[in-house]
């Protein structure tokens, strides 16, 4: 670069350079002189300024001096002499004045300080008060927050409880609806069951009727057969007897009509001496016998379900009355002899028509075995006593129970005191005998006549006397109205059998008869109470004994099967 430059610069640049140097050269000498001049001029300037300053200072000092002088003159009241001294005094006076002024200022300052301190205290008090109030307010705020929080939690709890209650309500409602549904179902079922029940009862009744019809049919057939056989062999009668031997009878030929060894006074009824006949009861256990009022028929009821009716003279079987479902406890003829009543352990009392031998009515309603059943005199009413401790009064025609008496305590036997059965007398297990009013059902009278259970009670036909038979081995004849004991009869060795033991009166009320457990038959004089006769003719316990309505004959049934006719 520089080479080209040099080439081109040979002209102008060199010339310029040369001129510059010339210029410098020209100026140089003069410049030197002027520079030294300038230095001196500078010095001059300095001196001048210094002198100016000095002058100014002196002038200032002079001015001050004059001022001081003036002030002194003024202060000291124009004193001429002692200018030097007065100057000092003047100074002192000035200083003193200054001191005064300063003292005043100081007191002023102290006063102001005092007021400021006071104000400061007031302000700090106010500040403290404000702080106090602020703190209280903060506490209140905190309490309010606390209360708010607690209320909030309580509200939450309430809401939770509410929700639970709602749920419980929901559940209960569900259960309720479910239960209602169940109720509906159950009601439907109940109704269905009721309907079924009615249906079953109807069917059962129908079945009963059917059976009764069947029984009737069977009896009819039997009758037919009997008639046929009777037609074949008339008056063979005694063929009924199975063997000739009698049980331990001392004497007596088996003649049905006459009785061997008639003794003592008969007067209406006889005390039997000996057996004259034997009837096969055709049942294993005999519970009860009955004679029709005409004395022609003998009914036997026992362990079997069939009630057998025999000819009282011949001992021939006349009827075999079926219908009972269980054993028969008591049999009885109606007063007119057309009906036969049987009390059965199947909780029923049944009535058969004797003209046809058909089962006529069954009296259902007891809930226990029917122990005793009695007709009223006109046979319009039936009285039954059952082991459910009730005596029921039945309308015979309709077959419905009219009245129920509660005897409270269990009875063995009862009897009607009058023809219509307005009053009943019962023999109780608690050793007492009671008299009842049928209409009201109330107990009229009672008396503890025996020491032990009263086994049977027999009302005299007149209704004045009652014969009671007790397990304690005594028979008592009591007045019906007052229950006073009239006669007491007992005998050594007499003991009634446990379950079935009946004492009976002769139709003229002269004799009382009872059978004992060992098979002996005792007869007493009812008025005097003396033992008239003892018959040891039975093999087993005597359960029932009756006088023939004529009084001439006695039928006694022993437990095992046989009934003896006695004269």
């Amino acid at each position, binding site marked *: 670069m520089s080479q080209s430059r040099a080439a*081109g610069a040979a002209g102008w640049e060199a010339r310029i350079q040369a001129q510059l140097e*010339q210029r410098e050269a020209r*100026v140089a000498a003069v410049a030197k002189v002027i520079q030294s001049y*300038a230095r001196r*001029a500078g010095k001059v300037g300095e001196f*001048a300024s210094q002198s100016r300053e000095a002058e100014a200072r002196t002038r200032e000092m002079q001015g001050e001096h004059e001022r001081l002088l003036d002030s002194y003159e003024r202060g000291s009241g124009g004193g001429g002499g002692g200018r030097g001294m007065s100057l000092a005094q003047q100074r002192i006076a000035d200083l003193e004045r200054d001191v005064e002024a300063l003292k005043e200022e100081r007191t002023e300052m102290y006063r102001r300080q005092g007021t400021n301190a006071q104000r400061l205290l007031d302000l700090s008090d106010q500040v403290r008060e404000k702080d106090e109030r602020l703190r209280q307010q903060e506490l209140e705020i905190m309490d309010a927050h606390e209360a708010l929080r607690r209320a909030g939690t309580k509200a939450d709890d309430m809401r939770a409880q509410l929700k639970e209650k709602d749920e419980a309500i929901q559940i209960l409602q569900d259960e309720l609806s479910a239960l209602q549904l169940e109720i509906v179902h159950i009601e439907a079922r109940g109704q269905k069951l009721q309907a079924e029940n009615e249906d079953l009862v109807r069917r059962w009744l129908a079945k009963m009727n059917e059976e009764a019809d069947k029984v009737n049919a069977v009896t009819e057939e039997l009758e037919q057969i009997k008639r046929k056989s009777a037609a074949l062999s008339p008056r063979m009668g005694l063929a009924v007897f199975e063997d000739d031997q009698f049980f331990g009878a001392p004497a007596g030929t088996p003649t049905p009509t006459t009785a061997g060894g008639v003794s003592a006074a008969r007067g209406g009824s006889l005390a039997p001496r000996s057996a004259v006949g034997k009837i096969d009861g055709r049942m294993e256990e005999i519970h009860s016998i009955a004679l029709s009022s005409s004395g022609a028929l003998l009914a036997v009821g026992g362990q079997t379900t069939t009630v057998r009716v025999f000819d009282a003279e011949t001992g021939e079987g006349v009827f075999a009355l079926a219908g009972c479902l269980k054993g028969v406890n008591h049999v009885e003829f109606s007063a007119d002899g057309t009906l036969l009543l049987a009390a059965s352990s199947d909780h029923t009392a049944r009535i058969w028509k004797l003209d046809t031998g058909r089962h006529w009515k069954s009296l259902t309603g007891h809930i226990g075995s029917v122990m005793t059943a009695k007709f009223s005199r006109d046979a319009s009413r039936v009285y039954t006593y059952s082991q459910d401790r009730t005596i029921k009064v039945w309308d015979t025609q309709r077959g419905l129970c009219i009245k129920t008496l509660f005897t409270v305590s269990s009875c063995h036997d009862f009897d009607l005191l009058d023809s219509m059965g307005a009053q009943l007398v019962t023999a109780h297990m608690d050793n007492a005998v009671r008299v009842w009013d049928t209409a009201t059902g109330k107990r009229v009278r009672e008396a503890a006549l025996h020491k032990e259970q009263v086994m049977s009670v027999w009302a005299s036909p007149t209704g004045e006397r009652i014969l009671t038979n007790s397990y304690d081995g005594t028979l008592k004849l009591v007045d019906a109205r007052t229950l006073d004991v009239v006669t007491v009869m007992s005998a050594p060795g007499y003991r009634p059998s446990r379950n079935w033991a009946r004492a009976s009166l002769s139709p003229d009320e002269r004799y009382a008869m009872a059978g004992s457990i060992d098979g002996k038959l005792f007869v007493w004089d009812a008025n005097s109470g003396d033992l008239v006769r003892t018959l040891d003719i039975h093999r087993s316990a005597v359960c029932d004994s009756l006088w023939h309505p004529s009084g001439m004959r006695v039928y006694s049934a022993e437990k095992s099967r046989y009934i003896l006719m006695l004269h």
Partner: protein
Amino acid sequence: MEQQTTLRTAWGGVIPVELRLAAADAIELLASAVLPEPFQTFYMLVPRVSYLPFAISRIREQWLDPVLALAGGGGGGGGGAPIKDSDVWFEYGGQALRWHYPAGLLYDMLVGGRGGAGELPWALTVHVRRFPADRLIPAPGVQAMRDMFMAMVKEADFIRNGSTKRVMDLAKSDQMQLLDGVQTHSFEKYFAIHAIIAPPHDARAKPKSAQPKAIPVRFYMPAAAAADDAAAAAAAVKDAPDAGARQQQQQQQQQPVVDMARFHVSQLPVPLVRPGASSSSSSSSSSSSEQTTVADAFRLCYEIADGSAFVASCVCLCQGVSVPWETPVAWLAENLFYADCFLHLVVAAASG
């Protein structure tokens, strides 16, 4: 480097100045037309690139105040009102000097290099009263001068780069440094900042964008030396004897003085590359035939035809140096620039 030395030499140029107090003012101040003996004249060196107002304070401190103090003393507020800087003005040959021109420019304009002896020292008259506000920009002062100076610098930057960004981006301290450099005539101070504003460029090395777009140039031609009156001016100049002694110069002063009012000032941005030259890359513009020369600039400015011989009849002064016409403007801009980054070129008729 030769560039640096040229630069330094150009920058270091000073003008010895001889100052006298105007008579009228002396009478007013000191009640006598003539100052006390040692203080009649005051000599100082004014840097060419600096400005007259910067010298006023020195004049005051070292000359006028002592004079007044000595002569006037404490006697009755000497001379009326104190001297204000804004009242000080300079006068040469009856002409008030435009205080916003660089001193070197004023000297070249009024005294002229004229190929040799100028007038040394340069005799100026100082006035402290009756500032000619009709002829000069009023209120000269250090601060006013500084503002003027910065305005010129910005203008130069704008012409150079198309925006005043470089100058405006200068930190305050840098600006102060620039001004102080000018005021105290410190080359280091000034040039450090100048390098930021107008970085010296290597026509080949630097990219084209770093080159200034144009060079700010001002031509000062005496009005009488206009193209249509060139001969008369030349003759007028020629009448003066050759540069030499001071007396001759003073004689010249009596003769038709170059009237400042009648200067033709024209400014133009001069492109670095001669217009019409091939627009090849800057690296090839090293050939001097491409670069704009002063002659080109002059012709461009005054619209003189290329073939005119007028150019040859004039001489171009810059920093007291007669610049050959074929000097590239770019080189001039980098070496002979004034403090305000301008090239102030005085064109005068050749003195033969």
